[in-house]
């Protein structure tokens, strides 16, 4: 203990020394060596609260705290009777005192390379060299705003880029930057947002993820290789590695995405949340994650106009209701939380929302820990801040009562021992009745409400009938400032006619006013008042109500048609069905299909014992098929379907950005789709890797990914790749012609071969002293393509380019797996067959751009006739739910048999995706991905009755009605709550309608588009 103390005093001493460096203008201003706060209630730390304590402060630090403390002589004393002090909060996400970021450099011509001068990283969004401490200067105005919330410290950083550099721990006092800068390098900050960087890359979230991963590999390489090229960015970043990392996220799924990166690099991140983390509470608990939660709960919508309010998505309503429970729902799961003021508009809103969170069940100790100890620990500053234990910085906030459980007034903010008065509290309450004497005339004054907003009335004599001695009330304007009171009223009685103005001092106990004033005639007089009512017992501040009856529930997913709980795998028996097996048995009538443990257990016409506890579905007159597999889809993707910033972006992966909250998942289930390949767009020759998913509505993005799925990548040719329809400014990026496209492929694959050679040599020769070659995520994927471990689905239209790519592949000794769109496939179907490539096409699309001039609806049949494996895909959220109709068009155009046509949306896409060993047909042992149709599935009359994935029934048309009604009830319930809130005059916002946006092949940027799409 002594040892610790001495260290502590060393520290103190050193601080004192530093503070003397700056010369004074004038004589030295001294402050009291000791300050004592008496009779105060102290939250020493989140779990210890002491009443009537004394706090002794010296040199900006707490020296002693407790009940019986010997106070040295000559101490500056404050009586804090009735007041509560709370350790200063610590804000983890702030840019206080830093210059505002520049606007994004925008130019119509794409900026491919970095515009930052100097030996920095090649991408402007990676900026670990930025140090907040160098840029920090006291910003008194913002600091005061923080003080009013109760914050005394903040870690401030430049909020720009993916790797943002270091944050500095600063005090939130309003003067002396040197004193406020407590620690220069407290933490690092990352995000998925590229910020003001004007570079084209990255243009999507998956691009940000890939860039961050590549940069982390580069960092590793840099730190291990002495010969690596100099980089000021990596040099600094390497130094920063000992610091904790805060990862700013904008949605719950982003946390899960960042967690994957943390695992890959054996790092751990803390997360700045966005407010909807309650959705992933379970995953956060399993991962033992720490989340910094914002208190910026959404305001209610203005729901008075039903024409408008009916357009508010149920998901927004549900989030409005659940958001204030976010801190409680997480902390009650044992997840470590911190709280941030991020996004709150004012101190009033901050406190209101903090109270809201507490009223929803968040424990005061958890709330306080989340604002003090937890953040202090995360940045390793819990030795000096976070609690009011002996030896820590004397930074705390003084309240008129317990601020967590009552509506308290924030009075003072103490910053490292320096007092700052935020709000002066009147010494005593003036509320009551007084007998006033004005030059011998008596009146009765009544003061109500509060000292801050006093209301006054005075009783006057009635003048018209003096014999009656009747009285009337007149209004009095009252202001109270500390112990001064002003009264003004108009008199119209026997004594005076006109305005009387009075000023007085209030006695210490509030019972006597004594002062001067002027009468209507201007005469200067003495006056006095004496309280006639008994001084009231001190009014207890309003206590917060804890609402334990709160019953809002998170749905899976938390939007329209979400489940109350995720459906379970059941044993299901379909009886008397017409089964389209897609196997040698063809179409079997009156058959039984049994699913168990997520697999198909039986298919046939034998009478078979019904398993116990099975759901039995009579499918008489109905058709049962394997689920539809959409080979080309762009649903359920967040923040960008194209990483079009570079001609090759093989390093990006749609699997990184799958979202479970897309209503189109449910809509497509209702169209019989059970699996899909979510493809990268077609903005560049070598795009990104695919996500192969099952449409498991209600499940997390990771649960939707098909386990052990093969690796796929999107490539593209033609107009989109050469940016032919992107306007006159997009003529910079190579390639701009089909000639250039070929060379991009040759260049990429040639570099990949060299890369592979380098690594092979390194691993063979084990020349460790030279260090390993640089790991390149892009080239690794290309190597996988060359080694046939990653399969290409290539967007293509005209025969020349199709032929070209097959030649490229042949010369590099690999195969193209699938041509998608492939609208001129019918012209080169024989070559395709020879190469061994499949085709995934549209049934009848054409006329949307020049290169589809020769597209014909007979294409599918003609390719199939040449022995090519053909699928029909959607590439469109709307058409994706009618793929059965699209398949049926091949019966019309070219006369394909119904069985073969049906395979084009089931078995054939399964083959193209190398998933036909587990999907695509009704066969014992395959995944129970099944659709029950009301009719022949190719008939225009066919409707989906049941969709099952992995043995779970995820859509039932019979249930749709009741789900719609439940949506309606839930909406009405929440709208009613909002109306109540509207009526109470709580802040509300107008409804903002979001456009219907969907990703298409040619959609750039992070957002979907309402534009006509070009595919």
């Amino acid at each position, binding site marked *: 203990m002594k040892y610790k103390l001495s260290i502590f005093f060393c520290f103190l001493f050193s601080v004192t020394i530093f503070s003397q460096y700056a010369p004074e203008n004038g004589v030295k201003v001294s402050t009291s060596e000791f300050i004592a706060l008496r009779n105060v209630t102290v939250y020493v730390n989140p779990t210890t609260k002491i009443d009537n304590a004394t706090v002794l402060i010296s040199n900006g630090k707490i020296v002693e705290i407790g009940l019986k403390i010997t106070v040295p002589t000559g101490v500056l004393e404050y009586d804090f009777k009735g007041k509560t002090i709370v350790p200063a909060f610590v804000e983890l996400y702030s840019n206080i005192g830093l210059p505002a970021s520049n606007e994004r450099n925008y130019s119509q011509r794409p900026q491919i390379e970095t515009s930052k001068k100097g030996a920095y990283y090649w991408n402007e969004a990676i900026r670990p060299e930025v140090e907040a401490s160098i840029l920090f200067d006291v910003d008194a105005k913002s600091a005061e705003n923080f003080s009013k919330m109760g914050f005394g410290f903040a870690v401030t950083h430049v909020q720009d880029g993916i790797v943002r550099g270091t944050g500095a721990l600063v005090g939130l006092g309003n003067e002396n930057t040197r004193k406020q800068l407590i620690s220069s390098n407290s933490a690092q900050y990352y995000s998925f947002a590229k910020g003001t960087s004007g570079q084209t890359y990255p243009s999507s979230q998956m691009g940000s993820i890939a860039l961050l991963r590549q940069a982390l590999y580069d960092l590793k390489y840099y730190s291990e290789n002495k010969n690596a090229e100099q980089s000021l960015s990596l040099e600094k970043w390497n130094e920063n590695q000992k610091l904790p990392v805060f990862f700013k996220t904008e949605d719950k799924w982003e946390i899960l995405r960042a967690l994957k990166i943390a695992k890959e690099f054996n790092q751990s991140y803390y997360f700045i949340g966005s407010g909807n983390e309650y959705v992933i509470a379970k995953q956060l608990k399993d991962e033992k994650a720490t989340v910094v939660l914002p208190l910026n709960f959404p305001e209610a919508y203005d729901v008075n106009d039903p024409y408008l309010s009916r357009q508010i*998505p149920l998901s927004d309503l549900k989030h409005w209701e659940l958001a204030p429970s976010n801190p409680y729902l997480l902390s009650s799961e044992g997840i470590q939380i911190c709280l941030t003021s991020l996004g709150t508009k004012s101190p009033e809103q901050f406190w209101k929302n903090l109270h809201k969170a507490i009223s929803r069940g968040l424990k005061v100790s958890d709330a306080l820990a989340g604002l003090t100890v937890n953040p202090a620990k995360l940045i390793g500053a819990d030795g000096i801040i976070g609690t009011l234990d002996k030896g820590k910085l004397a930074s705390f906030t003084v309240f008129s009562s317990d601020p967590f459980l009552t509506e308290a007034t924030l009075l003072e903010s103490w910053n490292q021992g320096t007092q700052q008065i935020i709000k002066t509290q009147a010494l005593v309450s003036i509320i009551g009745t007084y007998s006033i004497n004005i030059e011998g005339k008596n009146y009765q004054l009544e003061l109500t409400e509060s000292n801050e907003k006093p209301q006054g009335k005075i009783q006057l004599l009635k003048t018209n009938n003096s014999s009656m001695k009747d009285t009337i009330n007149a209004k009095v304007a009252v202001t109270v400032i500390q112990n001064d009171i002003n009264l003004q009223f108009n008199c119209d009685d026997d004594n005076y006619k006109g305005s009387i103005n009075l000023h007085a001092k209030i006695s210490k106990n509030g019972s006597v006013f004594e002062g001067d004033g002027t009468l209507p005639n201007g005469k200067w007089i003495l006056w006095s008042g004496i309280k006639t009512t008994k001084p009231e017992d001190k009014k207890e501040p309003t206590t917060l109500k804890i609402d334990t009856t709160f019953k809002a529930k998170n749905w899976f997913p938390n939007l329209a048609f979400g489940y109350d709980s995720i459906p379970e795998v059941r044993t299901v028996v379909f009886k008397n069905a017409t089964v389209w097996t897609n196997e040698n048995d063809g179409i079997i009538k009156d058959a039984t299909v049994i699913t168990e443990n997520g697999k198909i257990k039986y298919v046939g016409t034998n009478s078979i014992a019904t398993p116990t506890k099975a759901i039995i579905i009579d499918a008489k007159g109905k058709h049962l098929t394997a689920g539809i597999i959409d080979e080309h889809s762009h649903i359920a993707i967040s923040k960008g379907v194209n990483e079009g910033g570079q001609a090759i972006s093989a390093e990006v992966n749609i699997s990184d950005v799958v979202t479970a909250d897309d209503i189109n998942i449910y809509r497509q289930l209702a169209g019989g789709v059970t699996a899909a390949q979510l493809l990268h767009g077609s903005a560049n020759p070598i795009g990104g890797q695919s996500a192969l998913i099952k449409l498991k509505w209600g499940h997390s993005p990771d649960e939707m990914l098909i386990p052990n799925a093969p690796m796929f990548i999107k490539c593209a040719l033609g107009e989109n790749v050469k940016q032919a329809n992107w306007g006159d400014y997009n003529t910079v990026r190579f390639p701009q012609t089909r000639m250039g496209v070929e060379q991009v492929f040759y260049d990429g694959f040639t570099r990949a071969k060299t890369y592979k050679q380098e690594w092979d040599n390194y691993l063979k020769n084990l020349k460790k002293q030279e260090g390993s070659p640089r790991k390149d995520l892009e080239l690794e994927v290309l190597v996988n393509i060359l080694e046939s471990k990653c399969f290409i689905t290539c967007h293509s239209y005209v025969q020349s380019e199709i032929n070209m790519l097959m030649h490229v592949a042949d010369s590099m000794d690999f195969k193209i797996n699938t041509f998608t769109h492939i609208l001129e496939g019918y012209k080169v179907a024989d070559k395709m067959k020879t190469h061994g490539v499949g085709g995934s096409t549209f049934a009848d699309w054409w006329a949307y751009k020049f290169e589809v001039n020769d597209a014909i609806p007979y294409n599918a049949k003609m390719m199939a006739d040449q022995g090519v494996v053909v699928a029909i895909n959607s590439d469109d959220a709307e058409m994706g739910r009618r793929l059965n109709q699209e398949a049926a068009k091949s019966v019309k155009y070219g006369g394909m048999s119904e069985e073969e046509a049906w395979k084009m949306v089931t078995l054939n896409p399964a083959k193209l995706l190398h998933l036909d060993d587990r999907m695509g047909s009704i066969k014992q042992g395959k995944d129970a991905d099944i659709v029950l149709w009301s009719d022949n599935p190719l*008939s225009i009359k066919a409707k989906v009755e049941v969709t099952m994935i992995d043995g779970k029934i995820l859509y039932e048309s019979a249930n749709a009605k009741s789900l719609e009604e439940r949506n309606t009830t839930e909406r009405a319930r929440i709208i009613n709550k909002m109306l109540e809130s509207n009526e109470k005059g709580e802040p509300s916002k107008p409804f*903002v309608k979001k456009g219907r946006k969907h990703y298409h092949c040619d959609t750039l940027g992070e957002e979907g*588009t309402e534009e006509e799409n070009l595919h």
Partner: protein
Amino acid sequence: MKFIAIILVVGSSFLTWAQPKRILLTNGFLHVGNGETMESALVGIVDGKIISVKNSLATTVNKQEWDTIINLNGQHIYPGFVAPNSTLGLTEIDAVRATRDFDDVGEFNPHVRTQIAYNAESKVISTVKTNGVLITQATPRGGIISGSSSVMFLSGWNWEDATIQKDDGIHLNWPSSTEGGGWWAEPAPKKRNENYEEEKQKIKSFFKLAQAYANAKEAKFDLRLEAMKACFIGNKRVFFHADDIQQLLDVMDFVKEFSIKYPVIIGGYDAHLIGKRFKDANIPVMLTRVHSLPEMDEDAVDLPYKLPYLLQQQGIKFCLQNTGDMETMNARNIPFLAGTAMAYGLTEEEALRAISLSSCEILGIDKLYGSIQVGKSATLFVSEGPALDMRTNKVSLILVNGKFESVTNFQTELYNKYKKKYEEKQK
């Protein structure tokens, strides 16, 4: 007399023959277009007009009366389907600006006419016709009043030949009750349109001016107002493009205020929510594309499919149209929009009425078109099976005003060309 027993594939060679004048179709399954059917029908056509519709079994045919008799052997006869509200013929390739002729500069363009921009030789048209769509309403886009549409055949040597009804109506894009959106890469959220009242006022002012002009005995000639005249004192329709409740109710008020004689709503997504008022107002609807996504998350997943049925149940006059993504090439799928409407509540005949007779009634051309009835134009087609199902929509004969049209197009030609390539290779 030429006697053709069975038509399997009518090649383009048919067109090179002298067009027959007296045609008799026998033994067809007739879908009249007005909801009725006749299992074994006989349709007599003289000089492009239908002169008789009778039961084959109860009628003796005098072969001398006809120069062409075609036994359909139970194939289905349909009135030509209609693609209203379409840019078909006004554009060829969506992405190529040089081919787009449907949207001109200006807010109030009633004088801008699609008729003369209609490309009768459009390759896209040739692929739409062969699925049974024989009539379209060439419709302009953009601005507040986009221009005047014209009803056209999907056939003809030039736009003049192809015209059924010149300048049938003006197209008014009712202001959106919500606004915003930014541009596509950096979209701003949409919100309630604060200029809604102002924008409505703008339209009212224009209509007031036009009304005064129409009623004036002598007015200084004004190109724009002249184009509006027939909306007040003629048969020119006013097509209001509007979807949400707020817009629809305001259109109803507007129609009353200006005593618009022939108002039509295009879109009408929310019409089913205010069915009674719609019916009472007697405003027909060209319904939003059946094959589209629900507008809101909570809408029933099949709401767009069910809309025709919902309108029909409430007695609202409606037909189908298909404006939207790739609408020109997709016009050939209009039969299947009706097919889906059938799967979701309408009967087969009700569904096909929604793309034939109802469309023609709303366009005001039902006197001659939209159904196979005596006195009407012989604008019809024959399909091997039910035309509302993809598998069986196989068009074997097309008549436009009694003239035979090719049932092939450049796509079937490419098909045959490359089929031959593979056949030769096999040899």
